[in-house]
């Protein structure tokens, strides 16, 4: 049995989910879902396993997550003050931001020149990778389990031995004239 999450952990996870959902947005898991803004149809980064990947030690960002979540909420509070947006207090400040404002804040944090850009870009990179490469799972296994990102990208299952082979791979015919200055070895002159 897993120990019950503390309030602090719930805030952290919800905030990170909202960040992941800003990078690759998805549909709400249930009507009252606040972390996911519901900005796009179909599963997004959170459903694809963003939190699992962020909590995978190999990323090197795991230890910094509590700091990033807290910092994101601090930025959200400051941002809301600046644009005169009333935040409700039932959820962490970043989660309370409507999607277009989450997006605007993430845009500011990842813009060249922002002093914390590296951290926010790393976080975005892994949130994206959860969706487009399921880097926390073996690829073949993730596809077999119906990983929403890999399926969205159009990946199909590998051969029985776990490797992809494509016996049909090309149109098999000449499609353009060669550059006139091509050497006999096939290089530019």
């Amino acid at each position, binding site marked *: 049995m897993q120990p019950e999450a503390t309030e602090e952990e719930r805030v952290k996870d919800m905030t990170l989910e909202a960040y992941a959902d800003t990078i690759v947005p998805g549909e709400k898991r249930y009507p009252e879902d606040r972390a996911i803004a519901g*900005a796009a149809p179909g599963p997004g980064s959170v459903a694809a396993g963003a939190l699992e990947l962020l909590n995978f030690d*190999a990323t090197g960002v795991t230890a910094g997550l509590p700091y990033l979540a807290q910092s994101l909420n601090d930025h959200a509070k400051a941002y809301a003050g600046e644009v005169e947006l009333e935040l409700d207090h039932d959820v962490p400040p970043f989660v309370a931001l409507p999607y277009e404002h989450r997006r605007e804040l993430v845009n500011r944090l990842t813009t060249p020149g922002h002093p914390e850009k590296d951290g926010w870009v790393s976080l975005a990179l892994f949130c994206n990778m959860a969706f487009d490469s399921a880097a926390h799972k073996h690829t073949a296994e993730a596809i077999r389990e119906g990983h929403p990102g890999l399926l969205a990208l159009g990946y199909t299952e590998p051969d029985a031995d776990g490797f992809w082979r494509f016996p049909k*791979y090309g149109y098999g015919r000449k*499609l353009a004239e060669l550059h006139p200055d091509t050497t006999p070895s*096939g290089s530019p002159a």
Partner: protein
Amino acid sequence: MTAIDKTDVVIVGSGFGGSIPAYHLAAGGAKVTVLERGPWLAAADFEHDYLLGSSYTRAFDFVVGDGMSVLGGNCVGGGSVVYFAAMPRAPRFVFERHGSIGRRMWPSVISRDTLEPWYDRVDESIPVSKQDWSDVSYAGGLWAAACNHSGRTANPAPVAVDNDTCVNCNFMMAGCKFDAKRSMLTNYLPAALSHGAEIRPLHEVQRLERTEDGSYRVHFDTVDEEDYRVHTGTGVIEAKVVIIAAGAGATPVILQRSEAALGEMPHGVGRYFSGNGERLNTAIIDEDRVREVLGLSREDGPVYSANHIGKGPTVANWDKLDGSLPEYERYSLEQLYFPPGLGTILAQVPGGEEPRWYGAEKKEILKQWANWLTIFLMTEDDNEGVFGTPPPTGNAYRISQQMLGRGSLRYDPTENTRHGWALADADCKAIIEKDGLAKVAPWTNDVVGAYTVHPLASCRIGDDAATSALHPNHELRNHPGIFVTDSASVPGALTVNPAMTIAALAERSVPGIVRELQARGVDVKYGAPSPDGSITGRRAVSKLDLVAGN
């Protein structure tokens, strides 16, 4: 007191720049020790898997700098294990470039003509295949047809792939499971081992110092095989000659860190870095238009829908590799495959609202990923990269267990570089958007800066002491007995994939290194055949002045 390990030559790094001299020097009779910071992987270890910790992350390195990020190899075989094996020779005009220095960048003794015999040696040794249209992937074929539709030419690229063995899985960046890719693991390295060379993986060289007799002491850390952030020990080895071939992102850093012990480095060390003018564009292909306009179709239903089928780059447009054009206006446009993960995040939504690299619109184009066609632009940049203070170890502060780190490289593209990028972007757009074939957008530089998979020139060769770090024979200026033979030595952008030129320069460096070893009392000779025993290349270079006397 423990006796210090001694050898004739220490080679730092085992990519093209390290493996080639390792083979020739070992075959010639020298005692060769190769120190490689990455793991030693073979076909059995190469996976089709994006899981962190699979060969995909073990074999390469992604270092984010300020304005430029660098993707390179990190394993025995180095860049040759993770490259896409395109092996064109650099066009003639490249060797006449002036770049930002107002005079010829390359040493006067090196031109396309003088490098040709060395290209031939590589061609025979690896070997390199000339592809025909039947070898071309759907992605390459589509690019060729689009070029043709725009009144352009297109060429199947010469590659170091055994097309009979290749299964077109497009996982070659994670190392080739089927040994179809002719990396150093399949030619120079086994030949070097058979002549007694020693390869030590997971040995990250940190710095050099000189001994009293003019030899070098090489300091290394050993690195954990799973978590590269963990260093498991330290050691030293002494050698009469040291060859640095750690890649253009790491070679200058090792020399910078050695400066305190070795004395002042030439001005060119850690300066004049070039990203080979690289830039990627993502086109989202309209299947219907491709059918109607280009008349293409696949046997199994889709017209294209094949982004992940193939073998890296197979077709390039070389129409702008025209020596009569002004500098910075010459470039190639090559079809390329780029796997998800690092590549996908940098793709932007064509015509979307800013920011275009994440969000709801980006998710929509991710869903069309199979219909992406990636075009790789290789332009002439201005060698504007500069390395800052070296990190405490390695060439980056490592963030992840593997792959991801933060380095000290700073890159602020000049107007010349931006001009070249803009022309190439516009040309790419004109070709691929003609008659509605696709929508295209360049990758963003805002996330991790500009991006190169072919870092060059951070320790370049040249005639001029003020702007080059190496003599024309690859020896480090003012530091006899230290040679640099990797991509760092290439003076500037090549407008094509650089592996063939890096390898040719490494071949060319060997006779001079042999002479230096002989001068230092090592019984070594130049003249080994190709790794498979072929001797055509050896016969050809034996007539050159550079080789005379060996």
